[in-house]
């Protein structure tokens, strides 16, 4: 049922053919993989072409590859979802902010900054959101093992509550 719409979106992406990216389609969701340089250009292009709703910013920590996959999801009123992702190195991760394009992006980036430690340059909002007085590493990174941390920090209750 989405055939017609998908061809129109691929037409949309043809305009962008100078930039290198990978695109795959599942249902009405387009998965676009781009380089860090093209990430912002594609974002600006999507914003100009009617992708008004900005759903979220997400991060996947690829520990073995040594990189973070940063992505955002947008949606337009023709009911197309586009997920654009790019990979950045795990050491000193930094990526341009999308807060100038979509007003609600800043808050999502603030969350990813807090949980993964990724710096979104140009975002004026980077301060703790969920946590108060947290001194540990960014908690959602793969190399921060919660079960180990919880075992060391709290003496986990034994079976039967206080009876130890």
């Amino acid at each position, binding site marked *: 049922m989405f055939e017609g719409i998908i061809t129109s979106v691929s037409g949309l992406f043809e305009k962008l053919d100078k930039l290198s990216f990978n695109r795959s389609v599942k249902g009405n969701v387009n998965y676009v993989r781009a380089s860090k340089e093209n990430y912002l250009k594609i974002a600006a292009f999507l914003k100009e072409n009617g992708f008004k709703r900005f759903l979220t910013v997400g991060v*996947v920590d690829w520990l073995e590859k040594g990189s973070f996959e940063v992505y955002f999801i947008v949606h337009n009123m023709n009911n197309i979802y586009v997920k654009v992702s790019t990979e950045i190195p795990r050491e000193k991760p930094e990526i341009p902010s999308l807060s100038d394009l979509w007003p609600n992006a800043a808050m999502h980036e603030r969350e990813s900054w807090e949980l993964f430690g990724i710096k979104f340059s140009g975002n004026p909002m980077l301060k703790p959101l969920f946590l*108060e007085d947290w001194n540990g590493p960014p908690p959602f990174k793969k190399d921060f093992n919660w079960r180990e941390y919880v075992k060391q920090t709290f003496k986990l209750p034994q079976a039967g509550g*206080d009876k130890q």
Partner: protein
Amino acid sequence: MIREALKSLKSGFQLLKSKPITYNFPPETPLAKEFRGRHIFDPTKCRSCGLCAKICPNKAIEMVEEGGTPSSSQVKVRHPQIDYAKCCFCGLCADICPTGALRMTNFPMLVAMDKSQLLFPPEKLAQPPELKMPEKPKIKNLTSWARSRSLWVINFFTGCCFIEAIPWVSSGFDMERFGLLVADSPRHADIFIIAGYVTWKTLKRIIRIYEQTPPPKFVVALGNCPATGGTYWDSYNTVKKIDDYIPVDIWIAGCPPRPEPIGLAVVEAMNAIQSGYTGKKEEVKTSEKLRVPATKEKLEENEFLLPFGPQHPASGNFQLKLKIDGENIVEAEPQVGYLHRGFEKLMEYRTWMQNVMLVERICVLDGGSYEVGYSVAVEKLAGLEPPERAQHLRVIQAELSRIQSHLLNLGLIGGATGFHTIQRITWGDREKILYLLERLTGGRIYHIYSIPGGVRRDLKEEFKKEAVKVLAYMRKRLKTYDELFIENPVFRKRTLDIGKLKAETALENDVTGPNLRASGIKFDVRKSTPYLAYDQLDFEIPTFKEGDAYHRTLVRRMEIEESLNIIEQALKKIPSGAFKVRFAPFATVPEGEAMSFIESARGELCFHMVSSGTNMPYRVKVRGPTFDTILVMLPKILKGAKIADVPVIYWSLDNCPADHDR
């Protein structure tokens, strides 16, 4: 206008004449058979395989030898021992048991003054459950008797168990007949209910409020999270044992406990107080780290900083820092994180099947939709095609969940505008929907019903008859709501043109769901990207152009009616056949990524899931519907509004603090 007002009054009088909807206490009728309560264990059938201990997501089950020592797998005879201070009653253990030695009964009354009584060794598990009402104690003196009959409960609900404390305020369970009253100020309160998990940020506020309460004070801990960390036992941000910090008098097991055991705990507390008990005399352990940090805000002359929440009758566990000038709000800043448990990463430590138990706890007010969204995403990853029957059953589950969520919101907006009658009625009627959910799924709040591959149990014919009755009852009640509340001129005056939201602004800030539809944009995922069986069902999407608090409430009121229609159709059209395809409890899912989009009660819910080919997710991203609405849009709407309108605007947007904190 006068005619409308008279109509509302008349409808109110008619309500007085109708049959009361309050339940008796102690409950006379047995609870729904399907409800998942305490286990019962048959040692003769047990093969000592230990699968129940392996599947338990909370590590509540331990295999022990005779005499209670933990055993290794080499020992031949070993039986499960269950700690109800950890158990979340998901029933995965009973499902996986190959011989049926471990089953679940519908017995919910697990209340103890001492936490260690909640540990059930195999011998105790083998005894059938029996309800023992506490005996009437002797009255020590007049003061203790009077105190026990007027206990005030502090209005600070910390976690998801508050959802089962809510029925006690409704006309269904009605706590006022016990002399209990909700007090909004800690200085007037006697009982502190710690409802569910406590994060580090909340702990500081709990200690402050506990210290402000004058003695004698009593603490009731609901659910397993305050006792042991419960479901979030491996979360970095939750407190594992609340009794390390403040003394607890009564523990209630359950996740969340049903209203009945909460009532039992109240009766126990009353009896204890009557016989002279004045609370535990332990000292509160605090340090400088556990103090609420002082605010350092730069204020102009004439400006004043007013915190709205987290302990506020209308806030939920959420705070708005309001900078005010007289009556007007200059700036509003949401303070969140009181409920942050780190779901997305907790899910990386659990198998695909165990995560069903976890995922619906993201949003306590509408758990059904989250389950469905998660299961749809996993099915896309694993390439499973659930049978049509399962899709219809999921529709019924999701719509029932939507109705109860909207009824809750009608009550909350009623409370925010001073209509406490409608609050009592809608929350009382919500019990009927919860009863249906319980019959269908086995859980009132957390269903654990939609699993990858289908649903967990089949529909029974008797459910259909009961559902038809409840649907007819709800349709009749909706008319009462209209006359009493929606068309009431006082309510209209209070909400029309309040908290205006334009369509363009709403889209730009990604407001979704009923809030977007009240602003004139007809966007509903059930229609735009049909999932489950929604493309086979006929329903309308109520849309209005005005975009104010009144029309947002109206959209929810209309959606209840549409949901009733959907359930009716789904019950008629449901095909026969299988209700699930096999998805093993420890199954692996092929490498890849998938997304699912679901229309939850609050708007579009999106799951993005990455699998690395193991039996656990590599990464899950949940995009909840309230994150943008509350964190981004609400401060913009509140700018320039009056203080008295804050609860109205806030609840007309229908927040779920647990959803945006995750």
